[in-house]
C-alpha cells in the first residue's frame, strides 16, 4: 500500500501561474523519491503541497497517517529568528512528543552543537539550512519532505544528509527530496519524479529513467599489440547498428559506445578472439549526463513515462 498518493493535483496561484497540472503518482514506504526538474518546474510547489504548507487548487494528497506524520524542510529559509538553534528544534520535538534527547542527537548529527545557543539570526546560511533539516529529522515520521536540502551545504554535510535520508527510508519511511545535485540523487534515490513546467514527465526507478533516457556506456580497450590491418574493417562491418566505434590511429586500442542496457558481455563477445586485451574500462553515463543531454534544452519530453517505484 502506498504511503503517499498524489492524485490529479493541480495548483494555480492567484497570479495566474499554473505551477502544477494534473500531477499523479504514488510512493511506496521505504522509498527515497527524488523530485527533479528545471527551476520553476513545480518541484517546490509539489513538495509544499505534500508537506501541507499550501493547498492544491484541485486534486488530493493522501499520506498514510496511520504510519505517522509528515515532516518537512522547505527550500526557502523558514525559521523562528528570535529563537536559538536548539529552541527551534526543541519546539518540534515538544510538539511531536519526541524525547528531548533526540534534539541533542540531531544537533550533533548536523554539527550544530557549537551554535546551539545562538539565535537563528546570528548563524550562517549553511547552518540555517542545517537547522531546517534538523527540525525535519528530529521526530520519527512516515513521510519526510525535503526541498533541496543539500543546497548551501558543504559536500561532506550534503552527503551526510543524503546518507541519513537513506537510513530513514531503510527504516520504512518515505522520503521525498528535490535536488539539482543529480549525482547525489543517483546515489540516494530509488526513484525519481521528473517535472517540466508543472507537468509530470516521468515517474520511474532511477536506473530505469537513465536507461530509457538513452544512456550509453563507453567501453575502452587497449590491446597488447596493435591490431592487424584487416581487423578495423572487420570490426566496422560487424558493428551492431546502435553502437559507435572509434579506433585509435595506431590501432593499439578502440572505444565503443553502446546503449547502457546492452551490458559489457556482448561487447566482449564482439571483440575478435585473436586480440589480446591489455586494459579494459567501461564508463556509464550518469543520471546527470543523460539529464543534461536530454533535458538541458528545456524541450519537453514527448510523453509521460511512469512506473511505480518500489524498493
Amino acid at each position, binding site marked *: 500500500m502506498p504511503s503517499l498518493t498524489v492524485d490529479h493535483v493541480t495548483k494555480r496561484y492567484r497570479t495566474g501561474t499554473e505551477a502544477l497540472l494534473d500531477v499523479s503518482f504514488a510512493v511506496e514506504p521505504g522509498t527515497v523519491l527524488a523530485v527533479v526538474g528545471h527551476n520553476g518546474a513545480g518541484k517546490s510547489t509539489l513538495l*509544499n503541497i505534500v*508537506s*501541507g*504548507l*499550501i*493547498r492544491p487548487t484541485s486534486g488530493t494528497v493522501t499520506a498514510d497517517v496511520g504510519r505517522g*506524520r*509528515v*515532516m*518537512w524542510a*522547505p527550500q*526557502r*529559509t*523558514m*525559521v*523562528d*529568528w*528570535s*529563537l*536559538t538553534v536548539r*529552541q527551534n528544534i526543541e*519546539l*518540534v520535538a*515538544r*510538539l*511531536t512528543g519526541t524525547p528531548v534527547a533526540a534534539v541533542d542527537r540531531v544537533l550533533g548529527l548536523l554539527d550544530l552543537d557549537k551554535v546551539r545557543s545562538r*539565535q537563528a539570526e546570528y548563524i550562517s546560511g549553511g547552518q540555517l539550512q542545517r537547522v531546517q533539516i534538523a*527540525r525535519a529529522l528530529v*521526530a520519527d515520521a512516515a513521510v519526510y519532505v525535503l526541498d533541496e536540502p543539500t543546497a548551501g551545504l558543504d559536500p561532506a554535510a550534503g552527503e551526510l544528509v543524503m546518507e541519513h535520508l537513506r537510513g530513514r527510508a531503510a527504516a520504512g519511511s518515505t522520503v521525498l527530496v528535490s535536488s539539482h545535485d543529480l549525482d547525489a540523487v543517483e546515489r540516494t534515490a530509488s526513484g525519481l519524479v521528473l517535472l517540466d513546467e508543472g507537468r509530470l514527465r516521468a515517474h520511474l526507478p532511477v536506473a530505469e529513467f537513465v536507461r530509457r533516457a538513452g544512456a550509453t556506456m563507453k567501453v575502452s580497450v587497449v590491446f597488447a599489440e596493435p591490431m592487424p590491418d584487416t581487423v578495423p574493417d572487420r570490426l566496422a562491418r560487424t558493428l551492431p547498428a546502435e553502437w559507435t566505434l572509434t579506433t585509435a590511429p595506431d590501432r593499439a586500442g578502440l572505444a565503443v559506445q553502446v546503449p547502457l542496457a546492452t551490458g559489457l558481455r556482448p561487447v566482449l563477445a564482439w571483440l575478435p578472439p585473436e586480440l589480446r586485451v591489455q586494459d579494459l574500462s567501461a564508463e556509464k553515463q550518469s543520471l546527470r549526463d543523460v539529464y543534461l543531454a536530454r533535458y538541458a534544452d528545456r524541450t519537453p519530453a514527448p510523453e509521460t513515462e511512469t512506473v511505480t517505484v518500489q524498493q
Partner: protein
Amino acid sequence: MKTSLTLARFHLLSVWNWRTSHLSRVIEAPAYFLFMVTGLDTLVAGTRVDGMAYDDFAYAGVLVVIAVRALFWCMGDVANDRKWGVYAVARTTDVSFPQYVGSILAANTVVATVQIAAICALKQLLGRGSPAQDLRMAGLAVLVCLLTVLTGCALGFGINSYSKRDLMTSLFSLPLVMTAPLFYSLDGLPLFMRVLAAVNPFTYCVLLVRSPAADSFPAQAITGCLAAALLVLGGLHLAAGRHELASNEQG
C-alpha cells in the same frame, strides 16, 4: 491545553530572547501613565472627568492603550509565525487551529497582564491608588486584552508581508488610541470626534474598564464589547478556513 502551553512557552522565550526589542512594551505604558497622572492631572487641577478623578480616568486609558498595543503585537506575532514557519510546524505536527490560537492568547495575555500589573502597582506607588477599585479595573483590562489579542490573531492570518503589517500598525494604532476617550472626555468635543469615538471599539473597552470607578452600570460598554467579541470570533472562524499555513513572502 498542554500543547497550547508548550507553544506559548516558546512564544515567551521568543519575547525574552528579543527582550531589547520588546523593551518598549515595558516602558511605554508606565511612561504614559506617569505623564498623564503627574502632568495632566496637575493641569486639570483636581477637576472630575466623567464623574471620576482624572488619575482614575487616565489609569483606565493607559490600561486600554496596553490592550491596543497587544492587538498589534499579536497581529505581528501571528504574521511572523506564518512567515517563519512556526505556524506551519505547529499545524503539521497535529496542533489544531484552536490550540494555536490558545497559545497566542496565553503568551500575549501573560505579557499584557504583567504590563497591567505594573501600571496598577505604579498607581499605588504614586499614592493615587484605591486598591480594590484599581484591581477590578485591571481585571476588566485583562478581559479587554483577551479580546484584542484574539482580534490581532484574526488579523494576523490576513497579513502576508511585512509591508502590510507595518501599514496596518502605523495606519490604525494611533487613530484608535486618539479617537477613543482614553485620556479626555467626549463631552464638548466636535461632532466628528464623537462619531469616530462611537465607531471605535476601544471607546466601549475603556467604558468597561472605567465602570468600577463610574456610578452607572456599563450596559453600553458591555453591549459594545460583546458585539466586538462576536465580530472577532467571526473573523477567527473565517481565518481558520481560508489561510495557507505559510505566507509566501521570502526572507
